[in-house]
């Protein structure tokens, strides 16, 4: 079942922990209105500066609060419009806590930010390209065993970097397309 989609555009200078907390609270309030799974798309194209404290409050803490261990419906996050100057603070905030986030650069390239194994990242990119895929075909594409791909998919699923739908795995990009087509995103 594809998740609902919630878009948030972030503006202006994302500096100070105080501002970060306020931004995160407002996003979490918005997301709490959804009963089921939701894909939150946070657009950072209009953020000229993000500092390390704000990256921790907005990006890392959103992921922690929306993680597998957190109560409530599943939440997925996609950070769009990531420019070069956003990368270091976000990467640092995530790496410090062993987290990873799905992103899209300003020119639309998918990227994983934070701490991630190379194999897991390769699987994620493949899923992004294919849109929707089951373990078998993915194992063939990656040229790894079914067992190995199962491990990669379990990790992507646990870290909420793909959307599991039965025995298939949906990329955030495809989820957005589907939502657009059905008028929900």
């Amino acid at each position, binding site marked *: 079942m594809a998740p609902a989609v919630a878009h948030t555009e972030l503006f202006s*200078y994302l*500096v*100070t*922990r*105080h*501002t970060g907390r306020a931004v995160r609270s407002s996003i979490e309030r918005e997301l709490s209105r959804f009963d089921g799974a939701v894909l939150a798309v946070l657009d950072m194209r209009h953020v*000229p*500066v*993000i*500092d*390390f*404290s704000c990256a*921790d*409050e907005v990006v*890392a*803490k959103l992921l922690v609060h929306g993680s597998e261990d957190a109560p409530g419906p599943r939440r997925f996050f996609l950070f769009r419009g990531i420019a*070069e*100057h956003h990368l*270091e*603070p976000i990467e*640092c*905030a995530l790496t*410090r*806590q062993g987290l990873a986030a799905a992103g899209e650069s300003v020119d639309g390239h998918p990227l994983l930010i934070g701490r991630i194994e190379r194999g897991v990242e390769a699987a994620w990119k493949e899923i992004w390209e294919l849109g929707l895929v089951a373990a078998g075909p993915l194992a063939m594409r990656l040229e790894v065993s079914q067992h190995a791909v199962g491990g990669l998919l379990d990790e992507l699923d646990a870290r909420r970097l793909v959307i599991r739908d039965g025995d298939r795995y949906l990329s955030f990009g495809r989820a957005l397309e589907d939502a657009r087509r059905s008028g929900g995103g």
Partner: protein
Amino acid sequence: MSRVIDVPATLDETGFETLVRTAGIGELEDGAARLLLDARQVTWVSPYGLIGLLAIGQAARQRTGLAPLIEPPDDPEVRSYIDRMDFWTAAADIFEMDAPSARRHGEVDKLLEVTSIRSHEDVHRVVEHVKDRAQRILINRLQYPRPSVIHFSVMLSEVCQNILEHADSIGWVCAQRYHWKRRLGKDVVVLAVMDVGVGFEGSLGAEHARRYGESWSAAAALEAAFLNGESRFRDPGRGQGLQAIRRQVIKWNGAVRIRSGDAMIARVPDWDDTPELQSDLPWFPGAQVLIVLPEYAGDAG
């Protein structure tokens, strides 16, 4: 009755140490005489020295309960510089003095005039305000690449937030470009940030002092924060700010010094000879940060 303290003629980081030692801030207590900072003989002042006057005034005020007095420099150039850096607006909150001077005309290569930091709104104002000047000075004068303006803004934000997050006190920031003829023969940007709050030892003590036992000190606290990214919070997301500043300063082959309590820790570039750690300085409350960024010569490391 006031106790007169002569402000050194050259008021930079060395002059600040002399002043702290002479004023004996650590020994001041309630009922002590009012301090009069006599700056008449000052002939040169850096951003660090300038906000150092505010920090010493505020520390004296906190410890004696009396607003200190200040005699402005006689030198017309220094007076004019201090006016243009808007020193007197912040000083009026600390010293007993007449209404602050309104003269702020003329341009110095200031990146940021003396600005008080009391809240996160102040940090926002500073970061947004500095953008155009940082662009002009870092890119046009010091040949930094364009993204450096953003990195500088982030550095500024993190170092100012340190006041709000750890000091529980008012602080000040000031930055300027000038030519370091004698020390480096190059243009530099100097950024100074100070507060007179609880300091690193006090801030990190509750969380870390027990682990260190008797070796806990201002120097140990500075090492924990500056080198290991430890903070007073258990939250693993904390403690990144100083680490980020250190990494960025290293990339730009700059210098950073943090003084707190009786200790100072530094990232020392090849052009500087400051000791990396000192622990025998005269005690002074809060934290005092000095960042020096030399002309750009490529990213290191």
